[in-house]
């Protein structure tokens, strides 16, 4: 089974900041998007159990190499990194265009994507890709089970209060959730093996894409302003032992007519 995992390199959580054009500054230290590590873990477990390989696909700045190396050390087989200065400032449509072009050059039975990213609230890349590539789209997966004959995949899709069981023919695109299970730490042996794993770097030209079709110039939307969250009133911290703390919390809530 060939699983392709989409991995976005995001600023280390907690260090996010905006650049002059009000876009997320990606010149800082990057790490793998948390949700992407959960689907990577699911992909690694599946290929460990059933054989096969895991290819990582990341579109992003040079700093994406570090998270890709970590993902290779966790056990992925190889990585494809699409990096091109012309992509800077791409909107979702531009990014989806690049990912689509890369996916058309790669072989896979399943594509995995994380539920969303810590530095962008779109959540649209995965469904957009499925639509552009004509792949079945299975979202909010909490469990992923390919059929032994390799023809179909079954997932549990989370919904409020329970889950649905869905089936689709492969190849398919699965958007996974954290319920899939905690990602592993790279082992030291994994770190050493990753040294010899392939990281292919593609530019827009390699993908046959016109630089003018992506990037800030081709963006369908423009950021006008970025406002920090409104200041909230100071928090009240109760440090008593639970016996007394509970009563104090109840009093506080009651005083504000919240209970």
């Amino acid at each position, binding site marked *: 089974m060939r699983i392709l995992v989409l991995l976005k390199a995001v600023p280390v959580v907690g260090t996010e900041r905006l650049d002059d054009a009000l876009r997320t500054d990606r010149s800082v230290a990057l790490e793998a998007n948390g949700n992407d590590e959960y689907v990577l873990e699911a992909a690694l477990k599946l290929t460990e159990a059933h054989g096969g390989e895991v290819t990582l696909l990341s579109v992003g700045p040079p700093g994406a190499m*570090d998270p890709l*190396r970590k993902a290779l*050390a966790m056990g992925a087989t190889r990585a494809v990194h699409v990096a091109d200065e012309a992509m800077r400032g791409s909107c979702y449509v531009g990014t989806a265009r690049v990912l689509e072009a890369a996916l058309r050059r790669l072989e896979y039975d399943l594509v995995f994507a994380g539920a969303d990213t810590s530095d962008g609230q779109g959540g649209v890349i995965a469904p957009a890709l499925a639509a552009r590539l004509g792949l079945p789209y299975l979202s909010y997966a909490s469990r992923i089970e390919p059929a032994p004959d390799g023809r179909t995949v079954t997932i549990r899709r989370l919904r409020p209060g329970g889950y649905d069981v869905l089936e689709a023919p492969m190849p398919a695109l699965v958007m996974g959730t954290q319920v899939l299970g905690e990602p592993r*730490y790279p*082992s*030291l*042996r994994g*770190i*050493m093996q990753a040294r010899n794993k392939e990281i292919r770097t593609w530019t827009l030209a390699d993908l046959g894409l016109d630089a003018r079709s992506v990037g800030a110039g081709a963006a369908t939307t423009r950021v006008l302003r970025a406002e920090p969250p409104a200041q909230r009133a100071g928090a009240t911290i109760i440090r008593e032992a639970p016996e007394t703390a509970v009563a104090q919390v109840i009093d506080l809530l009651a005083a504000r007519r919240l209970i």
Partner: protein
Amino acid sequence: MDLDLSPEHSLLRDTLRDFLANEVAPVIDEHERARRFPTEVVSKLGPMGLLGIPYPEEEGGAGLDTLAYAIAVEEISRVWGSLGIIVAAHTSLGCGPLHVAGTPEQKERYLVPMAQGKVIGAYGLTEPEAGSDSGGTRTTATHQGGPDGGVWILNGGKRFITNAGQAGTYVVTARTGTREDGSAEISAFILDADTPGFKVGRLEEKMGLHASATGELFFEDCCVPANQMLGPRGGGWRTFLQILDGGRISIGAMALGLAQAALDASTIYARERRQFGRPIGSFQGVAFMVADMATDVEAARQMVYRAAWLKDQGRDYGLAAAQAKLFASEVSKRATNDAIQVHGGYGYIEEYKVERYLRDAKLTELGEGTSQIQRLVIGRKVLDLRVV
């Protein structure tokens, strides 16, 4: 010259930081308070490859280098000194002698499971009468003929042995005879924890490193098959001293990690704590303490990493390792002590952790050769004279 870490070394460091913050930090206090060995934490280290970092894969190790190992001990000790010494004693002292002197069979049987982290190792050199004077071993081994080369009968005991009672394999020295010049002939032996006649005695109540085990070993007509002699007869002491040369890099790394922890805590505290209407870090008296800590820590790191690098290059590292251990351990004591000063009364309170750093750091001036012994080693090498 390239002073940047390689991508592998950086990834190792970042991975360890994540692992330690998520899986280890939350359980430290309970173990320290109960003086309990962290069996569960240690059992997670093996599968990650953290209990045999510098040994080749065919010996069960992770196949990384001494620098990677030093970084790992530094990062572990930065979070938890007890775990730092457990890993350092197991790796350098427990596995080390088998790596340098073991036969292929001995490596297969003992080193592979140890480097994989399935069995913990310990190293027994120190005795009540043989501390700094490690050649003063009183433990004896006498040969008894029989099939397969016969057996050695060990009698005596060891003191202050890290991982005592937790280890499955002990590597120990014993006197196997007297040389022509009257000096002791000392050989090394590999011992299974369940060997009849072998017993772990009292575990010490220590100033620090409360979650690590330090204890006595007793041998009473303890019968060891001849094929468990490690290295040639009479070569044990040399092997053990050679191991201490390398071990000093890891004690230096442990000292460095503790000093870094002290600096980290002091930096945060000096910025946040306010007195006289301003952060205490804005008073020169406090800022200078932090500045000295930061400078010392950086110098210690360069020395520890350089000693590791020399070893990895196959170059002579004895002097560099002794200097790194001496300097880093004295930096560690100073920095952890100053961290308490920066924290004021809060530094004296357990909750703020810095008092633990000082208690743990003190050991690095004692173990694997006291500071005086390091100065002897360095003095001899620099002067090319027998300094006593």
